[in-house]
């Protein structure tokens, strides 16, 4: 990341967490089928963990404001609609540069931290627009790709789409997997597909969207997570935002445990991105608690944690204003994104 202010955050992190941001990239490993099919997830036990989490972890007052600001830095500010236009994308990019009103940041003592969102996430058509709009900010542009959201276009078209987005300046590519491979247990096909996507991305980081709402069972989620990591995913991501069920704490728990298991075996850190359905500040805190408790402090930073969201930021802004003013806020008091 080039942005000076973000670097200062990184420096502070280095002091407190004892590590910097340059984790080695996950280049993947050979497909280990026995490890994949060995995965077992007990639904009731997982649900219980998730259900008791809000009673075990909470943050209040200054801590809460800080955690929410940290969440802002992890947001992939997203627009993925059929009616997107260049002006709409530019407006979003402006919001990404200044996600929280400067006076609120000042009141929080965070005015000099250069708080921005983690990325801006758009369709390929708007990659160059966003790159241009974000020039100098250090904020990367992420492009959804590979026939997003269903992922059913021809494989070579998918690879071409990735290459085109990278050529336009996207530094992150959010690919969708072919759900059929998971639903039919064709792990080799999933692995090969993901390997190709990763190769096509080159230096751009690749986030593998599992579309967990389509995979249905936690066992499928666990296995797909593992295969995508073996094939070199930099991030694993829950959903496109277009499935019937998108990010939940339950699938998050399972995916985080897979990230941990992958690290146990390879030493490599893979990032996590929940997307879709996280629209309230109190919801995002629970995701952060899970990240911290299941994976550790490092996974609260944008290089290992992203949140795919469009309306979450507005709620966080209101909460932050409430924190500094003591009065409940309103949406129209914060610039639109």
């Amino acid at each position, binding site marked *: 990341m080039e942005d000076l202010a973000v670097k200062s955050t990184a420096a502070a992190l280095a002091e407190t967490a004892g590590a910097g941001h340059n984790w080695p990239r996950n280049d993947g490993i050979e497909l280990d089928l026995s490890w994949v099919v060995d995965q*077992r997830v007990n639904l*009731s036990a997982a649900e219980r963990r998730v259900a008791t989490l809000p009673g*075990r972890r909470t943050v*209040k007052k200054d801590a*809460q404001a*800080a955690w929410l600001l940290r969440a802002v830095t992890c947001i992939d500010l997203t627009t993925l609609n059929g009616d997107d236009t260049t002006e709409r994308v530019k407006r979003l990019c402006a919001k990404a540069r200044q996600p929280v009103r400067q006076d609120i940041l000042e009141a929080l003592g965070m005015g000099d931290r250069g708080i921005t969102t983690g990325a801006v996430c758009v369709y390929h058509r708007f990659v160059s627009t966003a790159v241009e709009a974000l020039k100098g900010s250090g904020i990367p542009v992420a492009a959804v790709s590979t026939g997003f959201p269903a992922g059913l276009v021809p494989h070579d078209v998918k690879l071409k789409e990735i290459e085109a987005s990278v050529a336009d300046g996207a530094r992150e590519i959010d690919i969708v997997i072919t759900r059929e491979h998971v639903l039919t247990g064709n792990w080799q096909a999933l692995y090969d597909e993901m390997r190709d996507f990763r190769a096509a991305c080159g230096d751009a980081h690749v986030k593998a969207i599992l579309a967990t709402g389509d995979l249905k069972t*936690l066992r499928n989620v666990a296995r797909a997570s593992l295969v995508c990591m073996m094939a070199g995913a930099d991030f694993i991501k829950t959903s496109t935002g277009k499935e019937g069920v998108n990010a939940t704490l339950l699938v998050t728990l399972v995916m985080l445990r897979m990230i941990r298991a992958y690290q146990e075996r390879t030493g490599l850190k893979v990032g996590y991105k929940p997307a879709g359905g996280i629209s309230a500040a109190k919801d995002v805190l629970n995701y952060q608690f899970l990240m911290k*408790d299941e994976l550790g402090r490092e996974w609260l930073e944008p290089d290992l944690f992203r949140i795919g969201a469009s309306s979450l930021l507005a709620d966080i802004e209101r909460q932050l204003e409430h924190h500094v003013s003591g009065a409940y806020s309103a949406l129209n008091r914060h610039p639109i994104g």
Partner: protein
Amino acid sequence: MSVARYFDEMSYGPAPEADTEARAWLARHNSLFGHFINGAFVVSASGKTFDSYEPATGALLAKIARGGREDVNSAVAAARKAQGAWAKLPGHARARHLYALARMIQRHARLIAVVEALDNGKPIRETRDIDIPLAARHFYHHAGWAQLQETEFADQVPVGIVGQVIPWNFPFLMLAWKVAPALALGNTVILKPAEFTPLTALLFADLAAAAGLPPGVLNVVTGDGETGALIVEHEDIDKIAFTGSTEVGRLIREKTAGTGKSLTLELGGKSPFIIFDDADIDGAVEGVVDAIWFNQGQVCCAGSRLLVQEGIAPLFYERLKRRMGTLRVGQPLDKAIDMAAIVAPVQLQRIESLVAQGMTEGASLHQPKIDLPEGGSFYPPTLLTHVQPTSIVATEEIFGPVAVSMTFRTPEEAIQLANHTRYGLAASVWSETIGLALHVAAKLAAGVVWVNATNLFDAAAGFGGKRESGFGREGGREGCYEYLKPKAWIGRKLRSAPAAPVVKAAAGDFSMPALDRTAKLFIGGKQARPDGNYSRPVLSSKGKVIGEVGEGNRKDIRNAVVAAQAASAWSSATTHNRAQILYYIAENLNARAAEFADRIAAMTSASAAGARAEVDAAIARLFSYGAWADKYEGVVHQPPLRGVALAMPEPQGVVGVICPPEAPLLGFISLVAPLIAVGNRVVAVPSEQHPLAATDFYSVLETSDVPAGVVNIVTGSAVELAKTLAAHNDVDALWAFGSPELSMLVEKLSVGNLKRTFVDYGKAIDWMDRTAAEGPTFLRRAIDVKNIWIPYGE
């Protein structure tokens, strides 16, 4: 700390629950509490008090009345006065009272939760999210039993006045478990909360009075062990219900022996937590958190003994240790913690000393490097590995946040290790293979088994243990029976001591003599001579010697118990198989009915018709239990989760039976048949005066396909043989019918392994009366209900 600092560190800040209302409630009472007797708070007659502290800080919370004899007396008097009217209320009226209590708990839930956290030191999350909602649920559920009592328990009446002594680990939940069923079913209560944690019981009394509970129905007497002893020993109390340590449970069993007081004991445990190599390992790790770091491990059913399949042990320990590092220990009212304070310094010291001893015995200690609050009683989450079964930490209940762990190789070894304990409260089994999980669940000696889960509770599913974890159940229909007694037994009269007939010497003559016949003992399916090789004469009612039976002794009992233990296949025989055999016994007895009638007439003063009636009743009784054998089944509970809890009746194991002096055949059959119908194996001591009907009976058993060792018969002195059986630690239960002294010694001597006892205190049952002498009244005492919780889903 500033926002910027939190932003950099991403640490959790303090998140305290307010205690304003709780402190205000204490202040309204000037932090000084009397007993709650007859609907009002009263000071101790002695004026004595004791101090209650806040475990998290050591600060004084309140001064509490110390109950003495006069206080207990006045509480008992108030309860006695109220009981008649309370029991006479229509069930619907009691249901309304219970409902009001449930609603009242819900309306004041946060206040109760905060007071509980302050007084006990446990996290507010647990009191708020677990203890108090479960308590409210318990009152709801039992409001329902009150409503249904007249139809569902038509053949039962309330026990009467109940003394309830509850522990400090779940002060309010245990109150609910005790008070709700007692009141619902028409009993009145004297409750003694634990010395460390009396406050929520007093708050409950305060709120119950406001909710309109009539005076005397619920009385709360505070104090220490001495106060508890006064309640236990009070002669006008009809039942004692105790939850606490096995040690104190034993004392209570001894103190109440022979008094006729009904007794339920919920005692300690060392519950296994078994992780197979096909388990969801992360799920199981989280299960351990809920098993042993719930309530700082101060849980009688805590999964404190981890049994890990050897192949996955290194990975499991690695993940468990990592998880331990993310646990947070803090102030009870902090809303962002996993564990809070140990209840008192003395408990903390006990934990420390047991762990130290475990380490000198070779255990490896792991405690995460996490912060503990300053001051107060805190102990970190702890894992002891490399623990051998011989170590004190593997056998003793630590009652703290300490998991001990060992490995196993096969399911059989897991079951063996799990069951190799004096306790039998709960167990947890983790495997994603349904066949394996249910197989192991069925084999575990425990009152509650959780499959892929732990520490789940519900008012509809009975809770309670086997072995030295106590007897009786709390919750569900089986829990209701603990507060009821059969209507049919109300009129039982004390038997008169049998007049010993004067032996009349019979002179021989020159007619053809009767063919001499030697009645032997019947052990392990074989006729056996008594070990001592002495015999005792059997007299007719006229004093004529009509035969001799073996004088059984300790070693005969020992041999019979060995044979009965070896016949364990009977307990897993199909119910159809057991039913068939009971019918077949009846068939073979029927074929020899006349002979048995003659024998009964010869031994007793029964008329020929009376003797024949006894034989016919015995045949019918065998049919009844043949009928019950495949119909006395469990139920499927639907607790509030996606899953089921299977309430399975399980045989108790090896049961001694001291048959009543009267009804030599029917008495024997009435006790042995229900026991074997549900799969127990029996060591029976026939009527001491009239044993020949039972010794004749072994040849009926021999011709009826009864497997060897299922029924063993040892003749001799009822009292002497009862002593051996009562003290025998491999006998699981003892039924004894006879003199009041017999009941007393059986109960007293049963404390070794806390075997279940079923005695009559010298009050004879009319064995010819089916309503008093047959059916579920006996079957319920022949089984323990095991609840197997099975959450499901994919």
